[in-house]
């Protein structure tokens, strides 16, 4: 097995780049939507054969065992190449959870199935009354013999209609004194009569999000991960490494590139007023990348990231939105038109970018919540 961490950063980047460059199917590059598994299955097989499905997992569980520095390079190259992350909830969320908190039996059973995509996972966190205030969740799981019986509703469950399993936070002790207590982590099969999935249509007409209804759905007791009623702190622990990725420059960088080609094609790029606004956006992205690099260096030095990493997400998502708003402006009379707009050799779907940018300031902890966190945890401002 290759010890990737022993390679120089440059060598490793080259290797990753080359693989994505030559092996990734062209027709899947920079996919504008989240694919169903069937659409990317052939790519997944390739990745699986290569052993690259789970870059962050330890090698003993079939991962690449990358350290933070290498992991960042891996993701950077993935994003740069427009390589779809695939149906990676299992790899990103369930795997690390099981590796950290699961029993040996759980590891042996679930981890290989995640790598092979025999199971396709979705994440059941949010509920209609539990968005920013996630701890307010009400979906109940009660022990009944060897099973948990689940009742309630999840929402914003990405791609639940194409998943075989759900990992979810459920309330197992409704009488706990604080709402953060009494929450547990459960794995459950989707393919059963008590589970009903309905897609949600978004503004842009996409149907990636779902509602999932549980009506006496069942899952074996052995599908509890970690201790009963301790799910909240486990969920929070999972998020810590994730937080730098949600603040990564890539979405904004890609949008900026699109804006530039589009504006050049449209002539807006020659207009001084547009140029000033473009320069602002471009510098916002470039300077964000400098801050991102500072946090990435922290990770590379083996330090853990503090709450201040949230500032990356605030900045980059709002910047992303401004960039897509500039696209609309540059489109002039076509600014309300659905679908790709052709300019010269490039075709840019202005409206799709605009829509895509909208929820980024809402999901992953809304920017308002992030500001609350920074205000308390970083600036130490009082209640």
């Amino acid at each position: 097995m290759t010890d990737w961490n022993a390679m120089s950063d440059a060598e490793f980047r080259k290797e990753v780049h080359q693989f994505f460059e030559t092996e990734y199917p062209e027709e899947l590059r920079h996919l504008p939507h989240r694919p169903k598994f069937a659409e990317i299955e052939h790519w997944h097989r390739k990745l699986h054969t290569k052993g690259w499905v789970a870059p962050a997992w330890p090698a003993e569980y079939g991962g690449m065992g990358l350290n933070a520095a290498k992991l960042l390079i891996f993701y950077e190259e993935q994003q740069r190449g427009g390589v779809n992350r695939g149906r990676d909830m299992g790899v990103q969320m369930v795997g690390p959870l099981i590796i950290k908190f699961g029993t040996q039996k759980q590891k042996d059973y679930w981890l290989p199935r995640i790598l092979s995509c025999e199971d396709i996972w979705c994440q059941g966190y949010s509920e209609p009354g539990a968005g920013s205030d996630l701890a307010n969740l009400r979906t109940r799981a009660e022990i009944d013999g060897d099973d948990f019986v689940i009742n309630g509703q999840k929402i914003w469950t990405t791609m639940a209609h194409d998943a075989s399993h759900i990992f979810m936070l459920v309330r197992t002790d409704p009488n706990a004194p604080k709402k953060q207590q009494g929450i547990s982590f459960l794995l459950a099969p989707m393919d059963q009569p008590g589970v009903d999935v309905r897609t949600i249509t978004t503004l842009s007409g996409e149907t990636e999000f779902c509602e999932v209804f549980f009506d006496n759905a069942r899952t074996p007791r052995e599908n509890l991960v970690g201790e009963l009623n301790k799910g909240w702190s486990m969920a929070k622990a999972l998020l810590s490494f994730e937080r730098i990725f949600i603040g990564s420059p890539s979405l904004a960088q890609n949008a900026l590139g699109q804006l530039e080609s589009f504006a050049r094609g449209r002539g807006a790029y020659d207009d001084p007023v547009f140029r000033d606004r473009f320069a602002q956006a471009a510098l916002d992205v470039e300077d964000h990348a400098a801050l991102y690099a500072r946090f990435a260096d922290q990770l590379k030095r083996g330090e853990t990231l503090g709450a201040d990493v949230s500032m990356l997400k605030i900045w980059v998502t709002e910047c992303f939105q401004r960039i897509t708003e500039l696209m609309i402006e540059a489109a002039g009379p076509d600014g309300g038109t659905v679908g790709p707009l052709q300019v010269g050799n490039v075709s840019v779907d202005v409206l799709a970018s605009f829509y895509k940018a909208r929820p980024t300031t809402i999901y992953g902890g809304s920017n308002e919540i992030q500001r609350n966190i920074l205000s308390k945890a970083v600036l130490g401002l009082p209640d």
Partner: protein
Amino acid sequence: MLSSDQEDLRLLRESARTLFERAGGSGRARKLRDASGGWDSDMIGELAGAGVFGVTVPEANGGLGMGLAAGGVIAEEVGRVIAPEPVVLTIGLSLGLLRRLRPDHPKMEQLINGETTLAVAWQERGPGGAPADATCRYADGKLTGSKAWVVGAAGSHGFLVVAGGQNGPVLVLTEATADGLSVDKRVQADGSSLGELSFSGTPAEQLAEGSAVQDALAEAISDVTALAAAELVGLSDRAFEITLDYIKTREQFDKPIGSFQVIQHRAVDLNVMLEVAQACVREVLAQMDCETVPKIRARLASRAKARAVTAAKKITRDAIQLHGAVGYTDEFDIGLYLNRALVLSAWLGDDVYHRRIWLDAREEEGVAQ
């Protein structure tokens, strides 16, 4: 033309609002979008019955003769329920052209009565796109060439086309079913469509020619631009109401989110932006009714559109954020308002564009503070 007095406008607003609400408010817009993306001919009849289309047409020509200020009242109400019917288009552009060039033409009455709708094809792709540079030609009773960005192309019975004729620009009329006419439709964010028209020897009736066409077009564009601004104000007004209701009721952390100071101040800023936009657009419409110099009317219209677009963009986008995840779904009405704002902002020039021509015009006139 004199502006109607405040009491007349109040009554007009009330009756228009009642009419639209009875017809189903914004729910009607959603149904129409989901059905076909078109508009409702019964509704067009009802609107005509209420005198809506002829609101700015002089009484002598079969209208109500109430002026643009009254047209703005109608446009605001259209905006509030995001009605897909071509109300602003008809009042401002189709009738705006006809009443200036051919008040005698039978289409006038049909438009006012809601028996027909006519889209106006005046722009072309390519540099400039102004009528003087028209590459779409009219000769020997036939049209050849193409026109772009035709609003209402999908549902109209015919087109008023500004083309290059033998003696300067002409305004001609062609039927939607005419030979040699093809309409390429591009779907817009709100489900409506923009038409790209191609004519190859399409028969058309000449209605007017010469510089009068250009003058009337410029005037009609000023009118429709200011009315589109009013539609955006109405839209913003309702989008804000919806959002305000939502933040009063949606709870997180055991409190309505509207109790958080950050949300409150943001709501205040949207409210202030809305009030400024409303005051601006209503003032502009009243002033346009008293103003006869075309360039000044154009400058006023630019002022209105610049403000209304700025406000509507800000209000509808912030409204999505204030709704949180549900704002991003098609289930909540707020998204319909965002989409309609996108379309109305792009139509006839956005805020950046209109600020520029406003300042140029102000300078040319020597208007200073």
